[in-house]
């Protein structure tokens, strides 16, 4: 707004002195209201500084202000209002196969079979990249890895189970193809607890479900996973395997054999 920084000096120590004392000058064209608001924002005493609710109440701030609701998906901020536009856009972008260098869409084109989302298929290298050793983001955050497990249940059952779990704890559910995002409402220091679950196809009758924390407190996430998510999804696996009709094929016999055994094996790595 001013076109220059409030605290600036070629000498770093002099700049810090200005910051410490809260010394800054507003340009002449700033209104008195704005100058007042800024001095309350740049208040050196954290006790006296304006908080977000106070900013929202300020008359200068309220002029022309539009409250935007947003959520995080794919590590990007998404506007709730644009949701409908996004839905129609994503179908079109799937058909576009051009891949640009700097912006890679990490979603594989989703094949829509009769309205039901078909999960992306995993190849050997996908499985290899699950390893914690290959994921260097661990150098920057200690959010912990996601957990993955194999399930013989059909995709639609898993998704509806996730929705059911979310309803019990009053979490918001956002679905996009084979990704389900559960968002809590309780605000914490790191934001509300947000969990993203994604389903991948391992074989025609087995899927891998990957659960990751996208926001919120780590302990809360682990509690939720251990008490709510895992046990309920675990039961799903065992039950549905029995109910599913056995497909006729040599390979599938092995698969159902595996699926029938007491599985729920979590892929790396549960940080316990």
């Amino acid at each position, binding site marked *: 707004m001013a076109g220059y920084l409030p605290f600036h000096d070629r000498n770093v120590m002099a700049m810090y002195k200005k910051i410490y004392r809260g010394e800054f000058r507003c340009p002449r064209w700033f209104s008195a209201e704005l100058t007042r608001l800024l001095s309350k924002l740049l208040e050196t005493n954290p006790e006296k500084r304006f908080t977000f609710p106070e900013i929202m109440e300020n008359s200068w701030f309220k002029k022309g202000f539009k409250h935007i609701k947003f959520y995080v998906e794919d590590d990007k901020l998404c506007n709730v209002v644009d949701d409908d536009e996004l839905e129609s856009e994503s179908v079109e972008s799937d058909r576009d196969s051009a891949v640009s260098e700097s912006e890679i869409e990490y979603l594989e084109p989703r094949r829509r079979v009769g309205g039901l989302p078909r999960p992306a298929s995993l190849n*050997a290298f996908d499985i290899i990249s699950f390893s914690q050793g290959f994921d260097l*983001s661990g150098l920057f955050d200690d959010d912990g890895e996601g957990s993955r497990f194999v399930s013989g249940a059909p995709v639609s059952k898993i998704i509806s189970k996730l929705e059911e779990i979310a309803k019990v704890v009053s979490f918001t559910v956002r679905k996009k193809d084979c990704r389900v995002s559960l968002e809590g409402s309780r605000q914490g220091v790191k934001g509300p607890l947000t969990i993203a679950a994604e389903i991948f196809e391992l074989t025609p009758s087995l899927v891998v479900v990957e659960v990751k924390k996208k926001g919120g407190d780590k302990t809360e996430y682990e509690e939720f996973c251990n008490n709510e998510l895992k046990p309920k999804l675990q039961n799903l696996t065992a039950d549905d395997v029995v109910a599913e009709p056995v497909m006729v094929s040599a390979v599938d016999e092995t698969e159902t054999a595996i699926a029938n055994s007491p599985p729920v094996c979590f*892929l790396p790595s549960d940080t316990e």
Partner: protein
Amino acid sequence: MEDWPQVSSRSSSLTVGEQICAVFIPFFAIIDVLISSVGQCFDYRSTSPRSCQHADLERLARESRFSVNEVEALYELFKKLSCSIIDDGLIHKEELRLALFQAPYGENLFLDRVFDLFDEKKNGVIEFEEFIHALSVFHPYAPIEEKIDFAFRLYDLRQTGFIEREEVQQMVSAILMESDMMLSDELLTMIIDKTFADADSDKDGKINKEEWKAYVLKHPSLLKNMTLPYLKDVTTAFPSFIFNTEVED
């Protein structure tokens, strides 16, 4: 001017003790310098990247796709990692393992590969320069060819220039073992068969660089691990560098 005679008489009024001290003071100064310089020989710190000069940081910024401020911020990360177990300003394998697995012990095939690729000089430690060079590839704006190449070298366990079937088998088995997960041999074979059918276009049982490139362009999600979005905002993750910076970006 009338002080002169008084000065000379004052100087001769120094006690013998004070005169002796006056003689020895320069010697003490010399000994002091000798001790501190000898002491530096035994102090790793003075030779380690910890005392990275500003000129080095600028050079690293030029050679990589980071700005000087980003290199400084990454230096903060490097310092944190490099002194977690052995405080010598270099990242040892245990320290990398600790950072990624929160445990310094245990064997891990993937960690070995990552460490090996970071350690350009192959001297068993990762220096700051090597750290920056390797991380540069993980920047969101790094060209995809670099990422494809790095991933290829990661998976080429025996460094033969090809990703062989046995290597893929070894890696997938390692992952499953890490998770105590049991997948039957048939299932495993089927998954690898499917992958090779898709990737190995000349059907020679191994994936060469060109085949890998074509395969990855068909399945871009395979390069997911090769990009760290954090690198775009690294200066906000380590703001303490602000106190050390001499450059405005």
